[in-house]
């Protein structure tokens, strides 16, 4: 309780410097899903606050999940494993890359490595969420880890920085983001698998795959180093396209990561001089 009072005071102090609009948004958020009261109520309000925050993002996820279903069926998977993939892997970019490589008959080792390089970003999210989930039981840690996505992570971490939650409320806010996303992802995949069997090839629906990645990547290029990483990787993926065993994505991604890293180091050193 003392900790809680102390935290509220620091939040109030911080708010003194904030623009009016942000203050108002925070106030309305806080009165809607208030922290006090018995724990059952605050847990369910934290859950629904999560559902509310993720809702606008679900609209963008839905076409992505449809395309994943279409691509998985297009790669020659049977309908059942195509749907199961969305449950077992539950990571859009890796699923699309896996489907693409399967369709090209790439070796299994290359498919696995490619998917894992794409999913390495989850380590970053996992580390960032870790302090917020420190008090929860192993069962819920495993559930939260399984449900980890770019969008669920981004929405939760923004809320945790704006507003004080008790550990249980943080978990339930996160689940409020993650569970609807999981359900929608599965529904979209099922529809994609059913529709994908009927769409003629002349519609070029495979083109929607790079478009989806563009929609995710381009708005997130926040600085020069990230731009250089993307450019390097893109150029190498084209130049190395004909390398054997479809190894080009791995080569390109690793080069892009390293070049981005060194660019950032150079820029930092320059800024220090």
């Amino acid at each position, binding site marked *: 309780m003392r900790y809680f009072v102390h935290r509220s005071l620091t939040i109030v102090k911080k708010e003194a410097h904030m623009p009016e609009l942000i203050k108002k948004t925070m106030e309305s958020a806080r009165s809607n899903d208030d922290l006090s009261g018995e724990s059952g109520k605050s847990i369910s309000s934290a859950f629904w606050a999560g559902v509310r925050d993720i809702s606008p993002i679900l609209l963008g996820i839905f076409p992505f999940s449809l395309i994943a279903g279409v691509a998985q069926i297009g790669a020659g998977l049977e309908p059942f494993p195509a749907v199961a993939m969305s449950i077992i892997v539950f990571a859009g*970019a890796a699923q699309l890359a896996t489907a693409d490589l399967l369709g090209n008959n790439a070796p299994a080792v290359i498919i696995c490595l490619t998917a894992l390089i794409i999913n390495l970003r989850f380590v970053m999210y996992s580390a960032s969420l870790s302090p917020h*989930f420190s008090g929860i039981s192993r069962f819920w840690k495993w559930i939260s880890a399984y449900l980890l996505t770019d969008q669920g992570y981004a929405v939760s971490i923004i809320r945790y920085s704006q507003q004080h939650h008790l550990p249980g409320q943080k978990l339930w806010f996160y689940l409020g983001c993650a569970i609807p996303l999981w359900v929608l992802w599965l529904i979209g995949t099922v529809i994609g698998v059913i529709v994908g069997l009927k769409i003629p090839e002349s519609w070029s629906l495979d083109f929607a795959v790079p478009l989806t990645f563009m929609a995710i990547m381009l708005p997130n290029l926040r600085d020069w180093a990230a731009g250089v990483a993307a450019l390097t990787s893109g150029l190498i993926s084209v130049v190395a396209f004909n390398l054997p065993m479809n190894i080009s994505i791995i080569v390109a991604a690793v*080069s892009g990561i390293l070049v981005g890293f060194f660019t950032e180091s150079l820029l930092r050193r320059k800024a220090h001089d």
Partner: protein
Amino acid sequence: MTDMTSGNIWILLLVIGGATFLLRLSFIHLFADRQVPETITRLLRFVPPAALSALILPPIVTQNGSFAFFLSNERIPAAIVAAIVAVITRNTLYTICSGMAALWLYQALLG
């Protein structure tokens, strides 16, 4: 189309899914009490732009498995339209729809 047997596909999915789960679980549970070294954090930051970029360009500049940088490759102008929409709107749905619409329009005009 894949030549992989259905048994091997299940194994592949389980391996990718299992390893992905471990990546997600890493600092939430497995190394929960350890700090991530700064170098690793800095490297990981470049995973999304680098990995996604490698998945974007090849399917745009190739046709039936070989390069096509010419105007006959309608995917290039369509991708440029979609890129502009992505940067301006930051919206997945608009980006996909505008890119597909541009592609179909271009195909109809050429066809």
